[in-house]
């Protein structure tokens, strides 16, 4: 496919673009489309765009008004998080660092390493919560209503993914269980959550959960949304993990049982590590879906990246900059999701290779 030498150009074209008359037509249409769309896009994005300015009236060109995005960049990233408290964000990477070190320390001892990693993964959102929310360890309290932008998007989706994994494993095991009641409950739970739209779940969690709680119990609105998202994601995760569990050969169970391992240890030491490894691509895909879906929290009045951009575009100084905002949001989401999906593809390929090698 690559064009090695110029003298191969004609046969290359003939083979790849112009094989049949139909191909001639299709190629012409696509080239025409590109010639029609791309210059306009380029002009709007770059050529006619304004890059420096203080407000809307500085954007005189026909193209995009980028100063809008620059001037609100801080808010797009962290919302209304107080400026003098933003240094706390730098503390967040400490947690994974700490636990990667821990995992390295316990090299060779799988159960302990597993324990450390689990603790690290589950604890990360908690750590983030404490650091960002403050109110202890000498940190000033920052109300969750002030969180926003990409920070909020990441917080909700990370909480969702990290906590839905253990829940999903439990549900998947429950669905495979031979105990009839455990099995039915798991199936019902999974299908129930997978059957309703996230919007209704978010509305339910944000507005109606307090109705089902005793009166003076005040659960933070963000926390309620996170719980809703987590339960929603756990149903999807359960199906991903179940597929992984189905992929573990029966001989593995039999070997583990014959070694005298009980159910718990068979699962923890033999089956789950293999099943989870196989589920990694599915887990990443679920995460991508979740990451995109967090944009729905704007429906319940939270200002995530999308919500923040929408709110900013109604600022009277920047009227009519909606498309610039949406374009920026699209690029950010795309970069995150695309890099994750590429990672997942690479992992999948590696797993397949390993699998093939071990056979």
């Amino acid at each position, binding site marked *: 496919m690559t064009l090695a030498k110029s003298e191969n150009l004609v046969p290359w074209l003939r083979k790849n673009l112009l094989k049949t008359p139909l191909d001639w037509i299709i190629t012409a249409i696509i080239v025409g489309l590109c010639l029609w769309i791309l210059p306009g896009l380029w002009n709007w994005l770059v050529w006619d765009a304004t890059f420096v300015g203080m407000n809307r009236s500085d954007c005189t060109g026909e193209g995009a008004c980028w100063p809008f995005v620059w001037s*609100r960049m801080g*808010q797009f990233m962290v919302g*209304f998080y107080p400026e003098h408290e933003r240094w706390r964000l730098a503390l967040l990477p400490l947690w994974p660092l700490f636990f990667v070190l821990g995992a390295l320390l316990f090299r060779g001892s799988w159960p302990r390493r597993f324990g450390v990693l689990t603790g690290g993964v589950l604890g990360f959102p908690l750590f983030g919560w404490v650091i960002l929310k403050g109110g202890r360890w000498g940190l000033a309290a920052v*109300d969750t*209503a*002030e969180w926003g932008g990409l920070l909020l998007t990441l917080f909700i989706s990370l909480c969702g993914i990290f906590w839905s994994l253990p829940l999903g494993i*439990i549900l998947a*095991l*429950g669905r495979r*269980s031979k105990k009839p009641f*455990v099995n039915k409950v*798991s199936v019902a739970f999974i299908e129930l959550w997978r059957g309703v739209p996230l919007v209704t779940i978010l509305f339910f969690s*944000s*507005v*109606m959960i*307090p*109705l089902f*709680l*005793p*009166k*003076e*119990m*005040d659960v933070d*609105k963000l926390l309620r949304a996170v719980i809703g998202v987590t339960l929603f994601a756990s149903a999807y995760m359960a199906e991903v993990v179940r597929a992984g569990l189905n992929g573990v050969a029966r001989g593995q169970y039999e070997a583990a049982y014959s070694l005298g391992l009980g159910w*718990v240890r068979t*699962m923890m030491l033999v089956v789950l590590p293999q099943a989870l490894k196989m589920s990694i691509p599915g887990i990443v895909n679920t995460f991508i879906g979740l990451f995109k879906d967090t944009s729905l929290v704007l*429906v*319940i*009045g939270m200002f995530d990246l999308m919500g923040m951009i*929408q*709110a*900013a575009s*109604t*600022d*009277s100084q920047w*009227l*009519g900059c*909606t498309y610039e905002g949406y374009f920026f949001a699209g690029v950010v989401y795309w970069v995150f999701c695309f890099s994750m999906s590429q990672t997942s593809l690479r992992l999948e390929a590696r797993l397949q290779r390993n699998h093939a090698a071990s056979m």
Partner: protein
Amino acid sequence: MPHSFFCFLVISLIFLATHGIAAPNTLEVVKKRGVLHCGVSQGLAGFSAPDSKNSWSGIDVDLCRAVAVAVLGDGTKVKYRPLSAKERFTALQTGEIDLLSRNTSWTLVRDASLGLDFPAVLYYDGQGFMVSKKAGVKAVTELAGATICTQTGTTTELNIADFFRAKNMKYKLVVFEKNDEVVAAYEAGRCDVLSADQSGLYASRTKLKQPADHMVLSEVISKEPLGPAVRHGDNQWADIVRWTLFALLEAEELGLTSQNIDGELKTSKNPGVRRFLGAEGEVGKDLGLRPDWALSIVKQVGSYGEVFERNLGEATPLKIARGMNALWNKGGLHYPMPVR
């Protein structure tokens, strides 16, 4: 494994259930918390809107501040919860907010069946229409066949249906969840007419690219008494909100402002003023508040006149005249009950 999880779940649920049965009153809750949770709009200039630093202003916001002053003595101790029209009543019912101050119309159904109480009216309004000047429409009756954009979850939808049905005119309604989306759709030309409370129309007009090209028709098709709402059944809290609002009005009637109030407190011989400011009698105590509650309200928030001019008046982009919202003795409808 699953069992221990479920076990944890049930124990925590039982714990929650046994935890609180008695319904404490809102005043105690707010005092204990030290912060007033106030439900406001998601952004309606003049009523409640955040600036780019997320600090809120508007007439609804000033009422929140006044209640916080009355109860906690500090107008900054308010946490604003921006709510969509759809969320607002549920948020109040579930206790997520203590006070709903979100340009909400007082109607019979809301008062009687939604578990709400409306202590008083903050702003007398009516539903109106905004059209492009190019359309050449002068009166509401010329709107037959028009496409109308409005926000869902409001009385607006019902009023339009009633009005057009009574006049036997056809119309098409396009409803959005957020006011910003309504304005965007109107601006894009999706509808001929934007309908909302008149005050809201003036506010929305400032968000258009060419405000001068659009006009708000003078006629209104409904009565919209906008005011705060509280949970039904907590009379003490309703009283506090009602009299906080009356205090703003009473201050204007007595000629008190945030500027002159310290002087008046020292010099005034008027028993009405002295009672109002807590120098005589114990009206504050009867409400469960401090004796200087009204004094602090006027000091920190101002009188109704000041609040109106600051947020809606001629000096603001909205440029709304007092009209119905003048005091009763100046030809308006605001009539604070006697403070005694």
